[in-house]
Structure formats: C-alpha cells, structure tokens
C-alpha cells in the first residue's frame, strides 16, 4: 500500500533559533506587533510503500533518526495519511 507521510523537524527546545528570532524581530517594522515564540523548522512530505500505516510510520521514524533529523539539534514528528 501507498502512504503519504509528513515529517516535521523543529529545532530542539532550548536551542536558539536565529531564523525564528530574526523573523520575530523584523515583524514589528512590517506592522505586525504582538507576535512571539517564532520558530522555524522543516516540513518534509513524501510517499512510500508499506504493508500498513504502522509499518509506514516505523519506516519513516527510522529515516528520521538516520537522516531526516539531526538528534543533536532537532526534534521530529511523523504523521501518516
């Protein structure tokens, strides 16, 4: 069966996120006040073959650990559709 997977990769909590901070700092100048806690991560979508949704999830989590995320600096979350 074919599954669509979404992988969210975000900077680990507690690690500074310069990109998020930069966006946050530049928003007031563009007229957007009161925005906080901006964080920027990656969204990776893909399709894969697997026997069932659990197997698909397991494979994608595997890929996350090995490749898609770097555990030193990033957290990931997988969802399967």
């Amino acid at each position, binding site marked *: 069966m074919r599954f669509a997977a979404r992988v969210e990769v975000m900077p680990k909590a507690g*690690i*500074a996120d*310069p*990109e998020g901070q*930069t966006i946050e700092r530049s928003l007031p100048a563009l007229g957007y006040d009161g925005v906080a806690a901006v964080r920027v991560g990656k969204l990776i979508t893909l399709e894969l073959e697997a026997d069932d949704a659990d197997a698909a999830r397991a494979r994608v989590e595997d890929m996350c650990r090995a*490749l*898609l995320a*770097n555990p*030193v*600096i990033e957290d990931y979350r997988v969802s399967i559709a």
Partner: protein
Amino acid sequence: MSVRAAIVSFPGSNCEQDCERVLRGLGAEVVRVWHDATDLGGCDLVVLPGGFAHGDYLRPGAIARFSPVMQAVADHAASGGLVAGICNGFQVLCEAGLLPGALRRNAGLRFICRWVEVRVDNADTALTARAGPGQVLRLPINHFEGNYHVDASTLEAMRRRGRVTLRYVDNPNGSLDAIAGICNDAGNVFGLMPHPERACDPLLGSGDGALLFGSLLDAARGRVAV
C-alpha cells in the same frame, strides 16, 4: 618517507583540488578517493575537504555520511589513523558521529567568506603541534553552517580534555564557546571550519595554514615510523 594522504571527495565537494595542491607542495603523496570507494588505499592521513557534498541538501553532510567511503574512514579512525575534516568535511564528520556536536546555520543567517583570527586553544594536538599555545593564526572561513553546537555536558568534557583545538578571536557565526575546531577523545580525528589550504601562500594573505597541515604531516610521519 613521504606521507600518503587520501583526499576523500563527494559529489559536490569543491576544495579537493586546493587541498591536493597544498599537501603536495608540503611534500605529501596524495591519492584522491571518490565517495563510493570502500578502502582508502593504505593512507596515513585522510582529509575531507570543503564544499557542498550533495548540494548540502537537507543538512550539510547529512547525505554524504552514508557514502560507502565513510565506513573506511570510520575504520581508519578506529585504528588510530589521522582524519581531518575541513569545513564541509567537519560537517560530514559530525553527521557521521565521528566528532561530537553539530554545525548549524550562522547566527547572522548569511554566508560568510572572511579572513578571521583563531587562537590555538590546545597546542598539544596532532593538528596544532607546530603552533605555540595561544598562538593566533590568520585563516579564512567560508561557510553558511559553521555555528558549532553541542550539549552542555559534552562541552564541559571536551574542555576538560582539551578537545577544543581552535577558537575564534572574534566569533563570526555564533559558535558555542567561539569554537572553530575540535578533535575527538582519542586525539586523531579533527574538524575545523577555517580553510588552512587557503592560507598556505603569503601572496594570498597568509601562510599560517601550513602550520596546521605541517603538524598533521609530522604526526602522520611519526605514525609511519612506528
């Protein structure tokens, strides 16, 4: 006897010719090793040069570290062989787990190509032996992801064991502790963001890079003698 240095390149590496020229100029015998090789041809020193392996897509080094040659590099390191990753090579070594930590996007969110000063933090390593303790070297950096990060306890251990080799005098990229270069616990695997190969000719701005390469070649020679 001349040292045999293997320069490992990946699709997208781009500093391999420069490293080769400089190492040859310093008397080393150089072999080029492509990423799909499974052995390093009996070398004394492995250099992972700078560039954009696999376009730096996903993260610098993320894809390259799966290359067949990386197993050979890991074996070489495990048997005490010298390994030096420069810039992208440093990123690959971190991704491969041969060095601790990770290199993140520069704090300024821009690519930086600039001459910087780095201070030798530990002059008692195979990379820095020819330099004096605290000596300041002039070297160029050239990266978008050179912002070194590692968890606090590892950093503490690295400091204690003198695993920080080079630190920026004026931190250009937000690196933790202004770290510009590190080595592993065994003291045979090195990673540094500055490009010593670009600083081996005073006409180009500095000859300080030759101190670092020279140190590595000395160490490799020592190992050859043993």
